[in-house]
């Protein structure tokens, strides 16, 4: 096996080790060190364009879509995190429900400021996520993990239906308001949601690009042999990822609830978990921008097809099949290859590059 310099013309530089400008060797996992403004901006622009086309005429409709997509994307970022440590989680829906109800009830019943209740919701879901995470990391395989997380979401949904306000949910969840400035208006909420989404993405980015991210990757790629050899206790990192993901889901639930001014258990069932997974996969499970792009595409699809019941589900199915067969890296991966922008993509997934 010759060790030729790795300049493979047809491949973008995603996986090639590179010299930095100073000639010092850098990691081949090398995403840009600066914040990936480019892919996120592009993602948002693409999303805006997609959303704008069909329905600009209807006031509030376009913003509604984006806000829904933001909530989905935030939950999807959590999904991405858990995927980074090797799990496919169906628990995001359950934590969203908890977040929505916590924030919704506290603001509605106790009159607390929505920004405060949202923080409480995040805290609650993070702690709960850590607890559940500790239990769940005993799962012996991916399948077990999927099932336990699914069971958790269902237990949450059924419990909320049975014991808290019933299947119709909580009406009259207040809109956010800060120092007299109300976010009830869709356009204002739209900007709020965009900011929250970007902050969440920034958080996840910072996490993955810190030393912690390196540890997470070591767990993902070497859980059985390498990570323990280095003194890494895989469970610690899995629980951490799961807890943060839960917090993100709680936040997403709050974002959703305070916009639609209501929260119900049926919003967060199996269908929703599938939606989160689909968004992440379409966008590309290995990329931070993946769930964001995926959520925007999905919600756009849904808007286009909302006139024909059932077609959106068929569309999701087709997209999943096509992506799995042809585009396993998702849209973000595809985009990265086409534009040769591989090196800007945060944290490309572990993949083997074929050599002649």
């Amino acid at each position, binding site marked *: *096996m010759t*060790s030729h310099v*790795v300049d493979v013309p047809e491949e973008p530089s995603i*996986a090639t*080790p590179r*010299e*930095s400008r*100073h000639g*010092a*060797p*850098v*990691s*081949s*996992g*090398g995403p840009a*060190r600066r914040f990936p403004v480019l892919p996120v901006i592009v993602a948002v622009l693409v999303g805006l364009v997609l959303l704008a086309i069909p329905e600009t005429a209807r006031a509030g409709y376009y913003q509604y879509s984006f806000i829904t997509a933001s909530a989905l994307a935030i939950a999807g970022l959590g999904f991405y995190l858990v995927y980074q440590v090797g799990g496919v989680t169906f628990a995001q829906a359950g934590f969203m429900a908890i977040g929505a109800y916590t924030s919704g009830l506290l603001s509605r019943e106790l009159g607390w400021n929505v920004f405060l209740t949202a923080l409480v919701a995040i805290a609650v879901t993070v702690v709960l996520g850590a607890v559940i995470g500790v239990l769940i990391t005993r799962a012996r395989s991916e399948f077990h993990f999927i099932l336990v997380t699914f069971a958790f979401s269902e237990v949450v949904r059924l419990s909320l239906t049975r014991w808290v306000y019933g299947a119709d949910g909580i009406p009259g969840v207040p809109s956010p308001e800060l120092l007299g400035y109300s976010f009830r208006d869709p356009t204002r909420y739209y900007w709020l949601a965009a900011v929250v989404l970007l902050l969440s993405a920034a958080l996840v980015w910072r*996490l*993955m*690009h*810190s*030393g*912690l*991210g*390196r*540890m997470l*990757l*070591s767990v993902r*790629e*070497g859980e059985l*042999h*390498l*990570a*323990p*050899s*280095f*003194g*890494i*206790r*895989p469970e*610690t990192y899995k629980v*951490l990822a799961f807890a943060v993901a839960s917090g993100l889901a709680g936040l997403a639930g709050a974002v959703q609830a305070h916009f639609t001014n209501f929260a119900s258990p049926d919003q967060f069932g199996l269908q929703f978990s599938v939606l989160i997974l689909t968004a992440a996969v379409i966008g590309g499970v290995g990329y931070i921008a993946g769930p964001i792009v995926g959520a925007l595409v999905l919600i756009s699809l849904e808007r286009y097809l909302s006139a024909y019941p059932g077609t959106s589900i068929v569309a999701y199915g087709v997209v999943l099949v096509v992506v799995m067969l042809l585009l396993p890296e998702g849209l973000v991966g595809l985009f990265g290859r086409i534009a040769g922008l591989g090196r800007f993509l945060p944290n490309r997934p*572990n*993949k*083997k*590059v074929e*050599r002649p």
Partner: protein
Amino acid sequence: MSRAPSPSTDGAVLEVEGLTKHFRGVTAVEKVSLYAAAGEILGLIGPNGAGKTTLLNLITGFQQQDAGRVRLKGEDVTKLRAHAIARKGLTRTFQAPYTFEDETVLENVARALYPHARPSVLSQLRSGRHLGKASQDIRDRAEALVAEVGLPPGLATERASELPYGHRKLLTVAMALAADPAVLCLDEPAAGLSAAEKEKVFAMVQSLRARGVAILIVEHDMSLIMRLCDRIVVLDHGSRIAEGTPEQVRNDPAVLAAYLGGSHGAPAA
């Protein structure tokens, strides 16, 4: 409980007493004891299926023993799992050279160094992930380790998956050394290598002595073991059947019987 007579274990960095492991009725390891001192190279040999790798797994915490004790620098580490034992200073390589395929050689070693340089989650959060950033310290140490195991420095930016097999094995040794261990266990480091590559391994293991680390090496290549080790422990069917210097072991009738008794080759002189 009777114990096989063994030399004094004072000053031993690694002490193993009576390790036993059964698998569904089959005894993989039966009451095996051994010890290793700092700077010593201890060989572990035996016919196929003798239980060498299982023993290694038990010592390093990758499998749990049914009975017995392991002491590292005097401290009982029997109940600890692999990651905890690694942190205490006992690391290993594997028969297959596990590496992070898509990462460079330096990054691989950095990944191994990292948990020891930044042990707490908080410190990990605050530091950067890339070799170029934050830790010059980590990068220097990585380069030093790469050189120490005899990897040509030009390979530092090669991807691990691009390396020839022999170099990958050396890489895994560098990774195992990242923890600055007191005891290093090498699982068949010469397996699958050409004669020239084996010599490199030989030279490397010898040079590691200078570190003061105790080395436990499982191997099939007899001539390598005989030349390299200070002492050798021989296993057969899970039990220790001989122990001593290479000379003693080579001439031990029990050892010859074990190798000739099955369809295994005799230990080459």
